[in-house]
């Protein structure tokens, strides 16, 4: 059986959740990436004549209180939001893997200390932590990423660590040790690939949480602040015009739902497949 055939067969077996999720998240990502370079209308050009226009062919999602095209702004906002989510996950996932792998595999006092810390942080409602963190660092996009990155790292540490603990005593890892494989290689060549499916699922969940947290904090006015467009701060702008221009709130709100739903369906699809492989 050729490699290609096997991949085809593998894809064929994926659940519908995987496909729907893949579709939704790809659309979101393409949209967001596109938003970096191009939007149908200017995101800043204001027009007093075009304030609060309902959705039409000219303005798919209508216009806002400055007469700006909401579709373009949602695109831009989605770029920001997705970028923040991505960077947060990169940050926390990266550190999570590093610290989780080391503490999980080696254990010991360091592990104890890290875990006490992780437990303490994990217990806290994450938005509160991020809030305190951002008060210390100051608001703005970079600090938001840093704060959320720090806040999300412990959960990644925990996941990665527990996987490493599960696998460090697996027979095949004992075996690798017996062969005299170097520790670094055991960690990242022998163990790491085995946790990738679990990890990719938690990365997606983390990504979703980061997006929700970003929008929540931007909504509270402590995340991404205008004039940077983000879906969260657009929503907080829009809330005041809920009666007059409900589409203004719906566009960014539903975009968040679309992105998050896409990734959670995708991760569910992956999880189901992983389950099949393990014979669950």
């Amino acid at each position, binding site marked *: 059986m050729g490699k290609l055939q096997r991949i085809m067969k593998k894809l064929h077996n994926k659940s519908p959740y995987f496909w729907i999720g893949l579709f939704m998240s790809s659309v979101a990502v393409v949209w967001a990436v596109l938003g970096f370079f191009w939007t149908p209308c200017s995101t800043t050009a204001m027009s007093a004549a075009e304030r609060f226009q309902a959705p039409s062919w000219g303005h798919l999602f209508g216009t806002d209180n400055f007469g700006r095209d909401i579709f373009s702004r949602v695109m831009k906002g989605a770029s920001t939001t997705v970028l923040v989510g991505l960077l947060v996950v990169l940050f926390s996932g990266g550190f999570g893997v590093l610290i989780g792998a080391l503490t999980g595999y080696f254990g010991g006092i360091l592990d104890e200390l890290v875990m006490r810390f992780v437990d303490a942080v994990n217990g806290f409602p994450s938005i509160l932590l991020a809030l305190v963190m951002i008060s210390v660092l100051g608001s703005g996009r970079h600090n938001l990423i840093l704060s959320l990155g720090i806040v999300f790292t412990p959960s990644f540490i925990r996941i990665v660590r527990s996987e490493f603990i599960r696998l460090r005593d697996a*027979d*095949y890892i004992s*075996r*690798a040790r*017996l*062969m005299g*494989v170097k520790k670094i290689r055991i960690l990242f060549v022998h163990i790491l*690939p085995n946790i990738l499916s679990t990890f990719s699922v938690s990365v997606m969940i983390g990504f979703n949480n980061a997006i929700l947290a970003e929008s929540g904090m931007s909504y509270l006015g402590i995340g991404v602040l205008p004039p940077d467009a983000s879906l969260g701060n657009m929503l907080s702008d829009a809330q005041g015009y809920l009666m007059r221009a409900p589409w203004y709130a719906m566009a960014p709100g539903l975009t968040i739902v679309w992105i998050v739903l896409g990734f959670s369906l995708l991760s569910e699809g992956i999880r189901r497949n992983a389950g099949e*492989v393990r014979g669950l």
Partner: protein
Amino acid sequence: MKEIAAKAMVKIEDLSVHFGETKAVEHVNLTVAPGEILGIVGESGSGKSVTALTLMGLVADSAKMISGRILFEDTVLAESGKPRDKALYRRFQGEQMTMVFQEPMTSLNPTKRVGAQVEEMLLLHTQLTREERYQKVCESFQAVGLKNPEKVYRAYPHQLSGGMRQRAMIAMATILHPKLIVADEPTTALDVTIQNQIIELLRKINQKEKNAMIFITHDLNLARRLCHRIAVMQNGHVVECRGTQEVFADPKEEYTRRLIEAVPSRMKPKIKIQRSNREPVAVVEHLNVYYHDGGGLLSRKSRQQVIRDADFTIYRGEVLGLVGESGCGKSTLSKALLGMNRDIEGEIRHFSTRPQMIFQDPYSSLNPCKTIEWLLTEPLRAAGEIDPAFKMSAADRRAEAHDMLRKVGLDEKYLDRRPSQLSGGQRQRISIGQALITKPGLVIADEPVSALDVTLQAQIMELMRRLQDEMHMAYLFISHDINVVYQMSDRIMVMKDGQIVEQGETEEIFRAPKDPYTQLLLQES
């Protein structure tokens, strides 16, 4: 035969059960009469459990009954083409027919008291008062040999030993004096000594209650000791169904014969006996091994001694067998030998390159996300980093891997497969290849065949002996099954509670065991 069939209580007629594409059971006909113990024997996947579960109405919903029907006395319990009648089944389940499962730990609800779980039988099927129920449960505990029934009544499953749990399960299955008891591998999870007690208990119950019993096992020896009749199953078919004596004396089917032959037994000649030249590969002197429990920032560490004063030598080219029941310290000893246990006293000296290990479970001993080629070259790569003698090019490593693959009896088409695409036996072959590819002086095999079916067991043992012959290394062969050890080993050590109670030449120990524990072991199996 006819006589029995005539008064048969349970009849399975032309039963076929499919799970989607998988044909689990094909045209099976079986009967059991009151007072009779029918053994269903087969390897894993032969359809024996599915047959029993279908009979009990417990088979998963995804199973389809393609043909046949099941009769309990005169009632048709199930018939192909009709949906399962759960209400009908419930009239029989528990009251008329009960089941004893393999894993007493997981088969009991971990969060309910054992007494309550047995009592549930009475709650469901009788109108007894609370006191009467309690009385009855305690009696039933006593009947299955549980001393201190009040205490057992209040206990949770995890507070009982494996044997006690299985007794409690049997108490549950017999409390309403059902007409049929199905026992699905009831002794497999238990140690040999306890295994026998449970077998005796089942026999006693059968004799006393005169109920029909179906005993499902993969172990022909067990079936032989307990059952009146034996049905041998293979790939969903009953290949042979006759009286126990007849089957063993004169197996009609080729498969049955193979099964009987594969069973490790002291009666058969050993695979091969090899005299060593007494050159040691590892010497262990006065070894004590400790095990640490807990030890967090806030909790105190507790240190337990697992191995006491172990003293032995392994010689080049020999197979040293290590026998003992679960928890006796066999695995700890092997780990200590491999240097995987830190807290040890005494001395371990190796006279060869690093020892390697073969594990029991072929599913967990191969890295699931790597290809077979990778798995076979990785030991060479790692060895190359430590020992310049093993330094070789990637192409050479591949060549070695291909070579090894052939040696363990697989061909090159497996190279780019992953472990999940192989069968259990194939995996264990790869596992052996991986351990041997760096030509270690000593290989520790920890129950390497226990997870395999008997026919495969024989093949793997044969392979191990053959490779040893070719590569001239020593095995430390660990098993709970004294018969397996007998077949493999030149010398034997018997271990109990962390101590080596006896060691010596295999034949000698089997002929004249000195230690009472060895005697017991030999007697029981």
